[in-house]
């Protein structure tokens, strides 16, 4: 299965939504850099994440902290550190970057 990374805020571009439209059931999406904003609680993107089953969502902890969103991440997201990012890459067959 594919690991998708998204590095753009959903408030800035359609990258996250495009990724969501095109990724397969069973794949994973890792939010990095400004992509973190898609995980912010009570936003349209977070509501979407919470309503989807069959795709796993992750977000990078350093980027969450850098944006002061520690307390505001949707509970549907699994937070990973850089080592967790590396593990996700090894656990998936390939990585597709959305930017």
């Amino acid at each position, binding site marked *: 299965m594919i690991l998708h990374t998204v590095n753009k805020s959903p408030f800035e571009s359609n990258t996250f939504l495009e990724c969501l439209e095109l990724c397969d059931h069973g794949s994973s999406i890792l939010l990095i*850099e400004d992509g973190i904003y898609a995980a912010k609680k009570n936003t349209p993107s977070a509501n979407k994440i919470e309503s989807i089953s069959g795709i796993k969502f992750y977000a990078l902890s350093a980027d969450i902290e850098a944006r002061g969103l520690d307390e505001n991440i949707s509970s549907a997201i699994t937070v990973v*550190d850089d080592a967790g*990012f590396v593990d996700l890459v090894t656990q998936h067959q390939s*990585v597709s*970057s959305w930017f």
Partner: protein
Amino acid sequence: MKFSLVILGAPYSRQASATALRFAKAAINKDHSIERVFFFDDGVYNSNALTVAPQDETNIPEEWSLLSTSHNIDMIACVSSALKRGIIDQTEAKRYEKEAANISEGTEISGLGQLVEATLLSDRVITFGS
């Protein structure tokens, strides 16, 4: 596992190369290896040895150089991306009659074939987009 990284963002204007640097260090800490780092488009600014960072900021091009020499990582700057952005090595400086070269230690100027080869030699290729 062997990873190769493709970096498309210039340091200090996009986060791509800072994220890639963190990823590379985390991968090495977990006993994986980095087969090749390929700087492409604005990513070639990561191989400018003349970069000077303020004292309280990370010198990202220098960090890549250090990582390359300490872990024997092959780093390539795409030739067509590099030359038009003023990233140049001794050979190209001579060829185009330029006064100096500025490519970072550990990085070589080469072509897209090196990226194709990296995908063949690595278990995973990760693109850090601009």
